[in-house]
């Protein structure tokens, strides 16, 4: 037992000397994961807001209605509307301070109601692309809506205007106008309802759980990517020890080589768990995942780390040289990460591909870690999965010890 701790301590001390590699193995998955998250989900950061300057020279019911339409609903999340005078508006749009500058001319309401041509002036900011486009489209839609509204309810609107101007509004007038508008809407209803397009809202996958941000599904893949990079990098240590002659020397010592494997695996587990914790903690804090799920997720990560290190070590020891070992593991791990949920969550892969991915070792780990993170409570992974992973780890260690004894250690 003393030798086990000694071997573990020795490797931890040695690997600490190469802190730069450890940092790179941590940074690369975070970078890749961050980029993929922002490409696929658009990120969860603040949305861009544009500024629309409106010079309302008509200042009527319809001109105010139109100006107000830009700050309603979803548009209100994208645009800030500010009323300005002509000189200020022209100056600020020239200076590029706004996404658009709209001039509603005097006589706009009358022209619309009298079905006469009217020209609105819209200047957009050429240095922006999306928001000026939205403003242009919305303006066109509003004008179209105004035209159809005039066709449908022109009489009623004109009566409201005239009655308002003559100050003759009373309860009877309001009631008659309301009934008239109601009748026209009811007569148009068969054309408007039900809608021609039926929208069916798909049920989200049961495993996603309620209220989990989509970005959370990226966390397990990034964690596993980190584990793979670190485990593969550390597993090379068997070859390093062989090339520097220390494995051979250990083979001639009275200690059993399983102690060497156990010590090295324990050291790797410490490093892998710390790395996994860092990535997991960043993901949890950024996405607001309850920290109560951390212990169970971390336990799964630690056991996954053991299995991964043990098997990668064994596979590398089967190769004929250090460069062959690195080459083989690198070209094998890339596609495994692709289909195993490290680059894209299994939940968004096509069904058959996700099923294949779940059957890869890393995909199995990602899948169960995902269920652990998005579950309602902690320790959600089923006992059979824990058992499978434990057997995977144990078999990798036994095979590594066998390979050491079978000639790898003596070179």
């Amino acid at each position, binding site marked *: 037992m003393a030798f086990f701790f000694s071997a573990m301590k020795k490797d931890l001390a040695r690997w600490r000397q190469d802190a730069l590699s450890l940092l790179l193995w941590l940074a690369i998955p975070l970078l890749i994961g961050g980029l993929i998250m922002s490409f696929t989900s658009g990120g969860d950061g603040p949305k861009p807001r544009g500024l629309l300057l409106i010079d309302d020279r008509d200042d009527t019911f319809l001109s105010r209605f139109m100006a107000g339409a830009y700050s309603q609903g979803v548009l209100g999340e994208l645009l800030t509307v500010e009323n300005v005078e002509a000189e200020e508006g022209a100056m600020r749009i020239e200076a590029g301070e706004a996404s658009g500058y709209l001039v509603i001319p005097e006589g706009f309401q009358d022209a619309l109601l009298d079905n006469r041509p009217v020209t609105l002036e819209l200047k957009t900011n050429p240095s922006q692309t999306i928001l000026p486009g939205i403003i242009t489209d919305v303006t066109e839609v509003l004008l179209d809506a105004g035209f159809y509204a005039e066709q449908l309810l022109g009489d009623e609107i004109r009566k409201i205007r005239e009655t308002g101007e003559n100050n003759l509004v009373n309860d009877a007038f309001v009631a008659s106008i309301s009934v008239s508008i109601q009748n026209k809407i009811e007569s148009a209803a068969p054309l408007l309802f039900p809608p021609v397009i039926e929208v069916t809202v798909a049920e989200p996958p049961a495993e996603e759980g309620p209220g989990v941000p989509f970005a959370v599904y990226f966390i397990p893949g990034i964690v596993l990517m980190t584990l793979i990079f670190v485990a593969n990098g550390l597993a090379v240590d068997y070859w390093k020890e062989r090339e520097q002659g220390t494995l051979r020397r250990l083979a*001639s010592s009275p200690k059993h080589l399983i102690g060497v494997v156990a010590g090295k695996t324990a050291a790797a587990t410490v490093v892998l768990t710390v790395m996994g914790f860092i990535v997991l903690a960043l993901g949890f804090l950024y996405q607001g995942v309850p920290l109560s799920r951390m212990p169970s997720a971390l336990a799964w990560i630690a056991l996954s780390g053991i299995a991964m290190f043990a098997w990668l070590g064994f596979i590398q020891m089967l190769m004929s040289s250090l460069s062959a070992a690195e080459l083989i593991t690198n070209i094998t791990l890339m596609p495994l990460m692709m289909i195993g949920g490290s680059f894209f969550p299994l939940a968004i892969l096509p069904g058959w591909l996700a099923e294949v991915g779940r059957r890869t070792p890393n995909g199995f780990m990602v899948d169960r870690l995902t269920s652990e993170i998005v579950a309602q409570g902690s320790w959600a992974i089923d006992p059979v999965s824990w058992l499978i992973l434990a057997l995977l780890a144990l078999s990798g260690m036994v095979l590594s010890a066998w390979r050491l004894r079978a000639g790898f250690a003596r070179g």
Partner: protein
Amino acid sequence: MSSVMISVHGLSRHFGDLVAVDDVSFEAQAGAIFGLLGPNGAGKSTTINCISGLLKPTSGRIAVAGHDVRRDATAAKQSLGVVPQELAIYEDLPAIENLRFWGRAYGLSGAELDARVDDVLGTIGLGDRARELPKKFSGGMKRRLNFGCGIVHAPPVMLLDEPTVGVDPQSRERLFDLVRAERDRGTCVLYTTHYMEEAEKLCDSLAIIDHGKMVAAGSMDELRAQLGARDVLQLNGEFPGAAADRAVSALAERIGEGLEVISSSESELTLTLNGASQMLPAIFEALASAGAVVNETSLRSPNLETLFLLLTGKELRE
């Protein structure tokens, strides 16, 4: 002081059709340095690997400190301190931690480990550099640390496999001192080398091995006695077949029984005889009269090199 610490009987090791070690037997005593001398590829390292348990012998029996290396491998290994030919240290681990690790690998712990590590650091002269990483050390310092890792558990038996290959003369002398110190402490040292001078300088007894076979064994005095006072005379030149035969016959007639031909070819003739320096004029005359031409002459006094030549018909460094 004559207890047998390494006992090798009928050791053979085959690699497929290749016989690397063929029926080798020897014994090494406590408090003595036993040399295994032979050219590269002679089977020295294979023998050492069988003793250290890295290789299973094809046949034969090996015991270390009374423990059979196959049936009682752990006890046999516990008695061994191995200093491999190549450096086998952790260059990214401080020197003191290297010694601690290898001490623990041989079962030391606590105060005993601390005391041994301090002792060894003093012995190998790295006490003031103990906390530094070996990758910053000179080649000689790394060699000393490599040696220290092999003695940290105070083994009764040490295996040193060509420890001076590629080592500068100063570091080599320092290493010899360390080996002698271990011998004086009562350790049985098995030392392999292909440097004849090293073996003569360091070893109390040795075995000469070539092509996997042991060609001679004994104490240095016993081996020198095998040579007697015979010198080795090596002649290079032109010795066409018939001329060489005539020359050798003429020499044998003139010199008598003391002459022995070790090897002969059309360009080289190697002889051994008593008092060769006095006989040179007669030898040259006999060769000239037989039609041979001598371009270069080399006369060597009896030593291990000449013994090897005598026994195998070739140079140790070939």
